[in-house]
């Protein structure tokens, strides 16, 4: 009776904060034995944190973990392994120059002499290969294997250590579609052998084709759990994005003018060379806000960086006032000169220099301008006065230009970035996640400023993963999924369900 009653894993009231960030907020999760359980959520929803707690990388601030009904305390990955938990990380924890056998043995050598352990593990690998169809040549050098096979080695590592519960963190992110299919076959075989599998992803297609049950995380909370065959991609997308209190904003109708920016068939690759924006075209007019919606990680960031001149275009062209910008000329400096402002998505990493005084951060990108000093030397008084007026205009608190950037709160840091970009009066403003990690009061203030820019005849492109923000601000919405535009809507003609479908990749023709 107890056998049937106790699930493989129970997480009860798990809480974890990193400073002000509440990464896991009272999370409950039950994973039954012998199932494939998916966990979906946007980047930053808290999936990886939760799994790191399960695997002993972090300890929860409060809450309880039960394995097979037994309350346990997991303080290190070694303890997690002893409880039968194995983890396959998104970035493999393998030593490329070593052989498969040596990698599998690592940490389980079984004594100072290798030969004994090597013999038994070689045998075990052969058994596992037969049982689960996980054949790998134990003497192959890991660095020479394909990514799919390397992942197989990771799974074997966990199985050799006696894992009954396998956690896979975004395992398909690095795989080709064919390799992903092989992985799915493998996981189904493992499920047949009564192994429990937790599968983390933000791709709904994988959830639908592979899992038995699926839990949805959003902003550190576990918001829903479904039986996979009783749910649908739109329902999951809806749960992932969430419908919160709609932020109301006084906003008159838009009066779009001439097209100032046109993107034609843009193709953009990320740092690893993967195509993230795949043939995106759109136009942007004066006096309108074009919202770019989508689940995080579907190419919005790369699109924004490409428009801002930070990331090169692999194909396609960008026209400003009908004229093509030749690629070698495109860089952030030039874009500022022709009147393109850019509020980057990540103010910490990109938009500000944290150890700098606020006044120094408030001129980043414009530091070559003559207002800050005519010769080689800066005019400190002009810099401070300029920062002071920007801080006043945007109600930055405290209004101290000499305070270090890092010492401002998130909302006030964001206001510094906005003040810098908006006060320079650009014709086109690219805005990424303007209110991420910003308190409610500042959100309202920032939204009003963005609408005021539109009313002043500026062309604005807004990238946000907050659907509410997209609805509240946009005059037109395009939806990105897997780097492609899956639809264009007007906010008055659509709702969250409709957008959720587009975000899940159900394009108009298919629908």
């Amino acid at each position, binding site marked *: 009776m107890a056998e049937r009653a106790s699930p493989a894993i129970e997480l009860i009231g798990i809480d974890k904060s990193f400073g002000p960030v509440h990464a896991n907020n009272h999370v409950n999760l039950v994973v039954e034995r012998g199932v494939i359980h998916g966990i979906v959520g946007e980047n930053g929803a808290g999936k990886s944190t939760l799994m790191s707690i399960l695997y002993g990388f972090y300890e929860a601030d409060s809450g309880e973990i039960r394995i097979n009904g037994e309350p346990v305390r997991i303080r290190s990955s070694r303890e997690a392994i002893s409880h039968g938990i194995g983890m396959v990380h998104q970035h493999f924890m393998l030593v490329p120059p070593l052989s498969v056998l040596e990698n599998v043995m690592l940490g389980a050598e079984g004594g100072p002499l290798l030969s004994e352990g090597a013999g038994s593990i070689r045998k075990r690998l052969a058994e596992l290969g037969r049982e689960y169809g996980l054949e790998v040549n134990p003497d192959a050098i890991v660095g020479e294997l394909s990514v799919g096979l390397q992942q197989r080695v990771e799974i074997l590592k966990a199985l050799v250590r006696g894992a009954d519960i396998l956690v896979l963190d975004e395992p398909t992110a690095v795989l080709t579609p064919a390799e992903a299919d092989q992985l799915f076959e493998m996981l189904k075989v493992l499920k047949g052998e009564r192994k429990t599998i937790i599968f983390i992803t933000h791709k709904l297609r994988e959830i639908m084709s592979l899992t038995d049950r699926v839990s949805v995380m959003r902003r550190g909370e576990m918001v829903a759990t479904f039986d996979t065959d009783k749910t649908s991609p739109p329902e999951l997308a809806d749960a992932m994005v969430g419908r919160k209190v709609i932020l109301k904003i006084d906003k008159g109708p838009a009066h779009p003018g001439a097209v100032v920016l046109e993107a034609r068939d843009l193709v953009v690759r990320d740092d690893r060379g993967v195509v993230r924006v795949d043939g995106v075209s759109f136009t942007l007019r004066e006096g309108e806000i074009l919202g770019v919606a989508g689940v995080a990680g579907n190419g919005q960031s790369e699109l924004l960086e490409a428009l801002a001149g*930070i990331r090169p275009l692999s194909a396609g062209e960008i026209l400003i006032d009908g004229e093509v910008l030749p690629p070698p000329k495109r860089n*952030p400096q030039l874009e500022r000169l022709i009147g393109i402002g850019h509020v980057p998505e990540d103010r910490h990493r990109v938009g500000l*220099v944290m150890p*700098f005084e606020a006044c*120094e951060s408030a001129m*980043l990108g414009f530091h070559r301008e003559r207002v800050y000093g005519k010769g080689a030397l800066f005019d400190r008084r002009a810099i401070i006065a300029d920062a002071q007026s920007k801080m006043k205009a945007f109600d930055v608190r405290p209004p101290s230009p000499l305070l270090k950037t890092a010492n401002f709160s998130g909302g006030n840091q964001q206001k510094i970035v906005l003040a810098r970009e908006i006060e320079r009066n650009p014709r086109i403003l690219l805005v990424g996640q303007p209110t991420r990690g910003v308190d409610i009061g500042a959100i309202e203030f920032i939204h009003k400023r963005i609408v005021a820019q539109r009313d002043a005849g500026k062309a604005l492109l807004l990238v946000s993963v907050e659907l509410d923000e997209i609805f509240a601000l946009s005059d037109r919405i395009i939806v990105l999924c897997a780097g492609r535009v899956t639809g264009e809507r007007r906010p008055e003609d659509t709702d969250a369900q409709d957008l959720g479908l587009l975000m899940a990749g159900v394009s108009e023709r298919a629908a």
Partner: protein
Amino acid sequence: MSSPLRPLPVWADVALIPLVNVAAAFVISGFVVLAIGENPLEAVKILIAGALGDLEGIGFTLYYATSFIFTGLAVAICFHAGLFNIGVEGQAYVAGLGAALAALHLGFLPGYSLVVVAIFAAALFGAAFAFIPGYLQAKRDSHIVITTIMFNYIASALMGYLLVDVLRNPSQMNPETPTFSVYGQVPQFHELLAPLGIHWPETPFNLSFLLALAAAFAVWLTIWRTRLGYEIRTVGANATAAVYGGISPARVTIVTTLLSGALAGGMAVNVILGEEHRLILEYTAGFGFVGIAVALMGRAHPVGIILAAILFGILYQGGAELAFETPKISRDMIVVIQGLVVLFAGALEHMFRRPVAVLLARRTTSPPI
């Protein structure tokens, strides 16, 4: 558990922590002296007296300090761009070649304009030698620590060849160039002060010291008050933000290493043009490496570097006296102290941070009695 403490007040950060670090280095050096079988207090007395006891000692101390200011600044300016230039030794060495070539072969220049040109030649050669690792870092991603270390060996081999086979005065056995004419020399203070009726004993202390102070001011101005310095600091603090701001990290890397090499050339001005008046083999004698210790101790700030350079000047001059007076202590003792300073001011920079912060917090929050 490590609970977050309030940040240290500025005075503690810039003055107290370095002092504590240096004090720790000296305390341990004291134990080494004790282990050798000498009295550490006696040793300190001899050291201080040797370095600061008379005008002659002070002259030598400031002469050494001048070299340390230049090499310290060269290392520090790279720190601001997030670069670790270990090659100041080699850059200063090659800068000596520039100074010597100009002083020997441009004798047609009128009066002291010769030495001015020689100073620029030193800076130019130092910068040129630093350019290669800088370029490789910027464009080829070859780590500057590795390349500059290797370039020190290249400098050593190159200069050895040139001094033995090419530049040597044919009538001489020593691997050194002929002596420069008087207009190819930076005047020494005892010469300058003699006509004014002030007697300063003969020391190598020369006008390069003022050049070093000017360079320190120029570095401060560049780093904190110019567009270039702003770009250097942005690249050093957050290269991603720099790209966003339209700053090219590659360009900044190259420009910074050029400036660093030029500053390293200041050491050639002090030693080759100011004292030796000819190029000699291995004249840098490790001063380029001491620059790393000076920059670390001075926390990459020009004022801190001047103070740290003077401290090292005292150590060098006083250490020579110490080795002379107490046979058991060799000049290697200075290297030990240096190593300990690098260890405490560089590698273990934050070791005393927490205790100091705890101590200060306790003092400020303890209830008044």
